[in-house]
């Protein structure tokens, strides 16, 4: 074997990295003695085993790479997935509508459904900005916060209910989307990402520190739950409540189910608007912007308006989702709007395959559903979760669904492979 030396060297380097990583985690053990003070005991055997295992695994992997037949990039496979999407999407929709009505389903599962659906909606909203227009936005949570605080403050100060505040929240978030859009019009790539990241943090810090208005870190409590044509979902069950009106036993499941259908409807609205816009000049201009900004300008497309509408429309849906979040939790504080939320939503979009609506749904199920369902595995769940993400990115580097369906065709539409698509540098 001619490059056995190189393989051994590579394996040794990987083993060295493993030594550095595992050193503090496996090599040292924190315990306590009878006196109750902390002790630190080394575990060289375990560490050596872990490093040796890493070395062997890397060596075997490289040897296997040398012998396996050359791999063909599975373009067919992803085309197949997108074709299957024709059937998966309606099936998922039926499952989503029917889920809370299944007899004997536990309240906690409906609640998880609400959570996943919230992230699906956020993912669809961000997909407009990142997936279609190719503008990398790391501060998306800011608009979610604007939506949530709009509703919380309007209900606290003016006694408005959820349904009146929903459109207002969306409009205010869209307005803030434009406020973010203006200063970043000329920025691209990394610079755009940094400024949007900072914008997200600014919004959170303002909320935290403007105690007189927002209650600061204590947040806002007693945000009203939504009502159904004036019927509340109070557990008291008297007249004027949902349970009382329909002569049912009050059950928390009724409220969760109602919330579930609200967020399902909001998410489907997001999806519908996005799919409609994609087939129209505005959506095509967004995608063209992602593909080549300079060519867009030479065709007379107003880049400023196109970018601002992408920011505004994306932010509007985050505002709707934020309003829903506030009414669902009945309590919001700045802790709910940290950078990790932006990162999670962005991960959903990237994992799903930028621009793909179905991909976002699958990715949201993986990103939100899997950690929740693995609760019983306790400390290992994040390990498994992280590993799963790495595996997905190795197997499908452009996300679950990386092909693009043209929005218009003369004959039979042909899918466009990921190799052709630009990720956008805006």
């Amino acid at each position, binding site marked *: 074997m001619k490059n056995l030396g190189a393989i051994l060297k590579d394996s040794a380097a990987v083993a060295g990295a493993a030594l550095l990583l595992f050193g503090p985690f496996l090599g040292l053990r924190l315990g306590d003695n009878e006196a109750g003070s902390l002790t630190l005991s080394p575990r060289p055997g375990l560490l050596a085993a872990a490093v040796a295992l890493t070395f062997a695994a890397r060596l075997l992997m490289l040897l296997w790479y040398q012998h396996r037949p050359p791999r063909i990039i599975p373009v067919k496979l992803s085309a197949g997935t997108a074709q299957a999407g024709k059937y998966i999407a309606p099936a998922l929709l039926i499952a989503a509508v029917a889920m809370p009505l299944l007899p004997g389903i536990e309240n906690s599962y409906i609640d998880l459904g609400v959570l996943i659906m919230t992230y699906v909606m956020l993912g669809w909203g961000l997909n407009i900005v990142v997936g279609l227009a190719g503008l990398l936005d790391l501060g998306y949570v800011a608009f979610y916060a604007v939506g949530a605080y709009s509703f919380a403050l309007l209900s606290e100060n003016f006694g408005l209910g959820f349904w009146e505040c929903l459109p207002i929240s969306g409009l205010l978030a869209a307005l803030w989307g434009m406020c973010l859009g203006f200063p970043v019009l000329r920025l691209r790539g990394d610079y755009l990402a940094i400024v949007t990241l900072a914008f997200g943090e600014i919004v959170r810090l303002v909320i935290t520190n403007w105690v007189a208005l927002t209650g600061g870190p204590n947040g806002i409590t007693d945000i009203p739950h939504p009502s159904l044509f004036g019927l509340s979902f109070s557990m008291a069950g008297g007249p004027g409540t949902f349970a009382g009106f329909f002569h049912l036993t009050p059950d928390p499941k009724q409220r969760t189910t109602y919330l579930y259908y609200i967020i399902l409807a909001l998410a489907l609205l997001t999806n519908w*608007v996005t799919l*409609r*816009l994609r087939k*129209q*000049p*505005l959506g*095509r*201009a967004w*995608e*063209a912007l*992602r*593909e*080549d900004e*300079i*060519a*867009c*300008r*030479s*065709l*007379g*497309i*107003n*880049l400023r308006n196109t970018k601002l*509408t992408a920011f505004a429309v994306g932010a509007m849906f985050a505002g709707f989702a934020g309003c829903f979040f506030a009414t669902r939790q009945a309590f919001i504080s700045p802790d709910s709007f940290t950078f990790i939320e932006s990162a999670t939503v962005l991960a959903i979009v990237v994992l799903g395959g930028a621009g793909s609506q179905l991909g976002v749904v699958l990715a949201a199920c993986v990103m939100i559903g899997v950690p929740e369902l693995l609760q019983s595995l306790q400390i290992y769940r994040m390990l498994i979760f992280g590993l799963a993400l790495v595996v997905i990115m190795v197997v499908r580097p452009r996300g679950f669904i990386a092909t*693009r369906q*043209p*929005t*218009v*065709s*003369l*004959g*039979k*539409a*042909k899918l*466009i*492979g990921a*190799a*052709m*698509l*630009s990720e956008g540098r805006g």
Partner: protein
Amino acid sequence: MTDTLLSVSELTMRFGGLTAVNGLSFAAQRGNITAVIGPNGAGKTTVFNCITGFYKPTSGSITIAHAPGHALRLDKMSGHAIAKKGRVARTFQNIRLFNGMSVLENLLVAQHNRLQAATGFGVLGVLGLGGYRAAERAAIERAKYWLEATHLLERADDAAGSLPYGAQRRLEIARAMCTDPVLLCLDEPAAGLNPRESAALNELLLNIRAQGCSLLLIEHDMGVVMKISDHVVVLDHGKKIADGTGVEIRNDPAVISAYLGEGDEDDADSPVGAELEAGS
């Protein structure tokens, strides 16, 4: 009689200490094919970028007259307005297509402004109201017309990035024509084409001229320049050194010396001299 469409006067473009274009003046007549030629680094593409708004000229003015006596200052407009209101379309030296979109989609993006107005700026379109459907049908018909003219009709549903090089060049021209321009600026349209493709390009450009659209082209391929252009402007070091018909240019000593270097006027057998002769 002269009917000036585009007039460039005293155009200067400096990048820091470098003067790329220096006091250039020329005019392009309506219905003509005007070629801008010159050695590498003469400032041809800079002139193009000034005309199409990608650079703001340091000084000088560029005007376009959609109708005689009805002039618009292009140098005062923003980049997209030059394409939209100035009705100047362009192609790029290194092709810039929307690779991830289909050929037909590329041509519909080019008709964005007309279509966008038909959707009531997005809102009515989402609700399915207004005359968008009819506008889109018309846009597809226009796209089909230019696909036919560029022999790309059977590739309409393929990704633009998957087309061969020559077809991508033609698609870029078709896309520019879909914006309904009065002046089409082509930056080296024949670069990288084989002789047969080059001949087909000549035909396409003459066809575009016949439909009333004037052309301005930068070209190195003298076969294209001499065969189809009505008027040639020669640049060297950012200045105009000659201006006239192909025959006049070919015999101009300043042009020959710019291409061959000073003092080599008698060296007509050199490759560049032959190139200048090629179009005769």
